[in-house]
């Protein structure tokens, strides 16, 4: 106890350029920096009795909305390739304006290949066929009869952060760069339950999952994954899955690249070999340094991102800031996140916020004393398999920078003297 007291106000450094010991977050050592925030002035001016305290507020709404003051918390939608081509692109999560691990359903990222179909759940059918004893058809009512499971899981588009393959850093915000990552609590029926009911033939090794969108987007998925932890999801964050995320039923393959989590799931064909669809040959394959390309790259490997500070949310005065971000791995849970304020020359461990769940993002936090000078902020995650997030140089050395997909190298924000953050390579 005595020791704890003597630490107060000292804010012990843990790495270069102002990174403090993570104990600082628990021990209140930041009190010393708060003095500049004490403003002068008459109490009446500081704490007026507002009009909304002098009359009853608004009544009740059947479906709640965020405060009207939060109208800038929006997804970023890059322009379509041509005016007529609506529905072909993405809507990206504004990660810098959110905290915690869950993405509100209305801000979950979207990637669609032919827009969002308007599906009447009473008309929707899911079919399982192919190498099965008995092909089966499920209505939504039928799917609701099965025991369900919930799990919190991230979905990350394989193309997330792909702009950082470019030779020069991109002057973009965090949503545009990294906003194809979101997390929900998903609830549904284990795919294994439905496959067992249909009776999988011993010769089966793969299944083809297909959506009911205009593109009938389809992917081949290893049967082993389907039997392991695949979920046929009906609910997202407690309510029915949003149309842009696959209403009325989507596949969840925890940890696998976003595109395989087929939305608007209408058909599962059990097969012996992959179908080689457009989105597992032409796209979502990783062209390496030589002429070869990796195919069937499923798990999103260990990655992390500082979401605050970030472009668009400038530091206002020197002093204490919490560096906060997300870390995740498609291969397991996050074991450690380190942060650096000097471009990776020195590192200190961040606090990992509970719950730490496999294949779910972890919120990490680290205390930082900004001295008003330039800084390069980085985070580096290690997962439960021991895999460490690579530097950009190590990433490029393994596969080159022509692969587009599965970019998971350490990301950097440069903080300038004005407190503005920009994307840099460091």
């Amino acid at each position, binding site marked *: 106890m005595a020791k704890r007291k003597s630490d107060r106000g000292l804010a012990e450094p843990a790495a270069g350029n102002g990174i403090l010991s993570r104990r600082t977050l628990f021990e209140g050592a930041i009190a010393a920096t708060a003095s500049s925030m004490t403003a002068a002035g008459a109490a009446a001016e500081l704490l007026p009795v507002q009009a909304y305290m002098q009359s009853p507020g608004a009544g009740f709404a059947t479906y709640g909305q965020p405060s009207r003051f939060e109208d800038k918390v929006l997804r970023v939608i890059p322009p379509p390739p041509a005016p007529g081509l609506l529905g072909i692109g993405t809507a990206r999560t504004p990660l810098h304006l959110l905290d915690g691990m869950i993405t509100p359903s209305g801000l979950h990222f979207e990637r669609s290949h032919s827009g969002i179909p308007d599906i009447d759940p009473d008309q929707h059918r899911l079919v399982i066929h192919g190498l099965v004893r008995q092909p089966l058809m499920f209505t939504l009512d039928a799917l609701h009869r099965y025991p369900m499971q919930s799990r919190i899981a991230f979905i990350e588009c394989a193309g997330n952060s792909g702009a950082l393959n470019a030779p020069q850093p991109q002057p973009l915000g965090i949503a545009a760069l990294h906003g194809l990552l979101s997390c929900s609590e998903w609830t549904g029926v284990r795919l294994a339950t439905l496959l067992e009911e249909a009776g999988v033939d011993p010769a089966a090794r793969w299944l083809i999952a297909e959506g009911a969108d205009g593109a009938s987007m389809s992917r081949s998925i290893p049967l082993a994954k389907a039997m392991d932890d695949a979920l046929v999801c009906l609910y997202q964050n407690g309510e029915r899955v949003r149309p842009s995320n696959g209403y009325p039923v989507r596949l969840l393959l925890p940890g696998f690249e976003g595109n395989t989590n087929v939305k608007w799931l209408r058909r599962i*064909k059990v097969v012996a*070999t992959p179908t080689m669809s457009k989105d597992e*040959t032409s796209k979502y394959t990783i062209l390496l340094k030589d002429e070869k390309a990796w195919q069937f790259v499923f798990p999103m490997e260990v990655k992390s991102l500082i979401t605050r500070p970030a472009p668009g949310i400038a530091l206002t005065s020197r002093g204490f800031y919490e560096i906060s971000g997300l870390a995740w791995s498609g291969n397991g849970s996050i074991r450690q996140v380190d942060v650096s304020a000097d471009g990776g020359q020195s590192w200190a461990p961040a606090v990992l916020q509970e719950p730490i769940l496999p294949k779910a993002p972890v919120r990490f936090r680290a205390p930082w004393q900004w001295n008003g000078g330039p800084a390069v902020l980085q985070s580096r995650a290690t997962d439960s398999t021991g895999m460490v997030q690579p530097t950009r140089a190590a990433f490029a050395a393994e596969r080159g920078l022509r692969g587009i997909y599965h970019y998971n190298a350490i990301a950097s924000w440069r903080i300038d003297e004005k407190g503005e953050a920009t994307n840099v390579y460091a």
Partner: protein
Amino acid sequence: MSTHKRLGLIAVWFALLPSLTQAQQFGQPISPADVAPWDISIGPDGATLPPGHGTAAQGEAVYAAKCAACHGEKGTGGPADVLAGGRGSLTTGKTPSKTVGSYWPYATTLFDYVRRAMPFTAPKSMTDDEVYAVSAYILNLNGIVGIDDVLDAQSLPRVSMPNRNGFVRFPRDPG
């Protein structure tokens, strides 16, 4: 009751459990014939290719009318992907142009994809003959089939794609 016997009974009880859980069966049996209209997946063996046929000569008109606006005359690209050319661009150090001709490992993928997803504004609107023909045209633009070569369920899976051996499995595949 001896501990052994008791364990034995518990084991029997657990053995019964799976059959109890299997009682939750809400899937409705459906015949393969009823599934057929939905089964649009075409693998490299082409086993599920439909009847019909077409040549590049026939496909040229289909392409001009239904594809060129987005993919450019002769597949050179526009608002949507480049479909032809790019051979040799995958080599080390070059900026790759990944097209049907330079990158795609299977010709069956072209038929599968165009039939289900193109033209973008009216997917699934073309006849199977049109899909064979326009696929032949795109392959012909890439110098892979001749202008009068007939594509059908037999010949399409046999089309040899230049980048057929360009793909390798991911070395850290967990499965």
